[in-house]
């Protein structure tokens, strides 16, 4: 039986705004097992970044975690992330859970060399002795297919976007965290660079033992990396399951619409059906199921009651009143 390393229970995050309260994360629950890759996919603005930030408590000051639990399990020890003291939280970040942000192009301090930023990180977590840190950094840089001799002493601006992204991934692995969160790690990179980053991640996953949360709006990338996939709509998980099930046997109409608009794992190209309608307004959500205004299977019930996540297959859950109808239609 695989160990659970992260457990999120009924997490709610909101941003008070002038027009009202933005409900960015609404009752998200999931588990993450050791060594597993879980992908969160959904349109931009659906709350994926907010969820990631909440896991390491790096939400903007204006954000409020209204409810929920985030539990990290490590060596038989449980850490309640939302209850950590400032100092414990500082230690927890990057050592137990590293988060690589969306748009990593500016993730490095422009006035410090790459090596200083590695040493800084190590020192902050009590790793002294530069020789040891340097050796590990160089090993990691090699693993992400960079030339350590060139990169380690460089300034960030001397590296290309793809190189910076790889350096950041290497830096993320420096302290051997149990969980790494990658938020859109390939956006803003060209297609070839995207591919090589994905290759690097697959290789790292094979060689090192860490769990990965992979956030993306790009399903094809998720398909290549993930063990399980969760589709997020309007701040909530609408379907979660094994990667094969999600791509081949999606039960939720939103997941179906998403998977229909990309080439599948097996490579056959389905016709691109874009999802009609516009993404929901997270301040004034539609009553009932948030997806109902765009859903081809919507019934009266969908407009009144919000559906819970329910089992729809082996380890697969969907939040839809009409998933059986949706299943038969495809």
């Amino acid at each position, binding site marked *: 039986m695989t160990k659970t390393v992260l457990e999120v229970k009924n997490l709610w995050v909101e941003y008070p705004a002038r027009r009202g309260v933005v409900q960015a994360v609404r009752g998200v629950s999931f588990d993450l097992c050791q060594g597993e890759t879980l992908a969160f996919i959904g349109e931009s603005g659906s709350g994926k970044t907010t969820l990631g930030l909440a896991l390491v408590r*790096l939400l903007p000051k204006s954000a409020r975690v209204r409810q929920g639990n985030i539990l990290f399990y490590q060596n038989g020890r449980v850490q309640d992330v939302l209850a950590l003291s400032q100092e414990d939280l500082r230690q927890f970040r*990057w050592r137990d859970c*590293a988060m690589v942000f969306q748009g*990593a192009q500016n993730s490095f301090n422009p*006035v410090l060399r790459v090596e200083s930023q590695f040493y*800084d990180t190590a020192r902050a977590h009590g790793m002294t002795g530069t020789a040891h840190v340097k050796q590990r950094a160089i090993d990691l840089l090699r693993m992400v297919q960079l030339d350590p001799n060139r990169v380690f002493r460089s*300034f960030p601006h001397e590296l290309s976007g793809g190189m910076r992204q790889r350096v950041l991934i290497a830096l993320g692995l420096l302290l051997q965290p149990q969980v790494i969160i990658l938020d859109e790690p390939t956006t803003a990179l060209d297609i070839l660079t995207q591919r090589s980053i994905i290759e690097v991640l697959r290789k790292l996953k094979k060689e090192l033992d860490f769990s990965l949360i992979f956030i993306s709006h790009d399903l094809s990338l998720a398909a290549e990396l993930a063990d399980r996939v969760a589709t997020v709509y309007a701040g909530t998980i609408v379907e979660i399951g094994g990667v094969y099930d999600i791509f081949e046997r999606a039960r939720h109409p939103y997941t179906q619409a998403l998977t229909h608009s990309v080439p599948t794992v097996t490579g056959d190209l389905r016709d691109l059906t874009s999802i009609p309608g516009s993404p929901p307004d997270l301040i004034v959500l539609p009553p009932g199921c948030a997806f109902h205004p765009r859903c081809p299977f919507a019934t009266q019930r969908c407009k009144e009651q919000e559906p819970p996540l329910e089992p729809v297959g082996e380890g697969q859950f969907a939040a839809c009143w009409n998933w059986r109808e949706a299943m038969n239609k495809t």
Partner: protein
Amino acid sequence: MATQAISTSLAPQKRTSLKVYFWRVANNYVLRRVIKALATIFVVITVTFFIIRLMPSNPVDIFIQEQMALYNSSYQEARDRAAALFAIDLTAPVTQQYLDYMGNLLRGDLGKSYRSQGAGVADIIKQFLPWTLFSVGTALFISFTLGVALGMVMAYRRETPLDYVLSTFASLVSSIPNYLIAIIIIVTFGSQLRILNIAQMRGSISPGVQPGFTLKFIGDVLYHAALPIFVYVLTTIGSWMLAMKSSTVATLEEDYVTVARARGLKDSRIMTSYVGRNAALPLFTQLAISIGFVVGGSVLIETIFVYQGIGQQLLKAINQRDYPVMQGIFLIITVAVVFANLLADLLYGRLDPRIRVGSEETK
């Protein structure tokens, strides 16, 4: 020597390499900047030379008026004395005067004052400039370091009462002219409350105090410079605070600061090396330019507090239309400002690795 022997046998190749070398020198960033600086200085000297002479009245007339008013002498008497005193020919064509001046300048001769018993302009500058450098320089140092520190505090504590208080203070003091603050200090603390003995604080040192590395001398120098320094700091600190605050607020939004937090770095480390260092970068150009203006000091402040610096000398020279002294002081100010700018440019490349590329020769 060996290279020479080889190069003679390879004469044509040497010529091309010389050409390459020439282009490399011509393209050299530092060299280009130095040439530009020298050109700027030349233009400013020329323009001030003519503008000074376009000012109404002239040294002789002013001397005559002074003599008539002071000694109640007749116009004729005053004229004769002036003619004896001014061994210069102000009737020579201005272009001739200009060429003479430039010629002397190239030989390093700044000329002599028309007044002050014909003292050399260089000697006057040597005597009065150090006091200004000391007072304004100290003030600039205090103002910059304190302003940057307070600006960061404001940014970190933005939207708190402390921020409101400091912001209000900063915009208030930076909008009041410095001479007004100087006068207010003299009137309230000097004349009304009688806390400060303004008369005693005049000058640069007290009579009878021997210069030297003694506590007494240093204390006395600080005592006399205290009021000018205080006024300079008070009137310049606000803009440093506000500039640093907005720069810090912008830097705090940068991705790398959030990432530094995600990396679990200590707040102190983030504040100094990640936020502070990047936020202060744009202020260094401003600082270098201010250093240039240190030389000019503040004409009004030195005059109000009767502080014997170069600014006071400049005002005196202007009132007497003492062309060589004016010209000399303007020259020093110009050189200081231009070279401070040059230094800022070159230094900025040292501080910000992203600029360093531009300052390197084209490879």
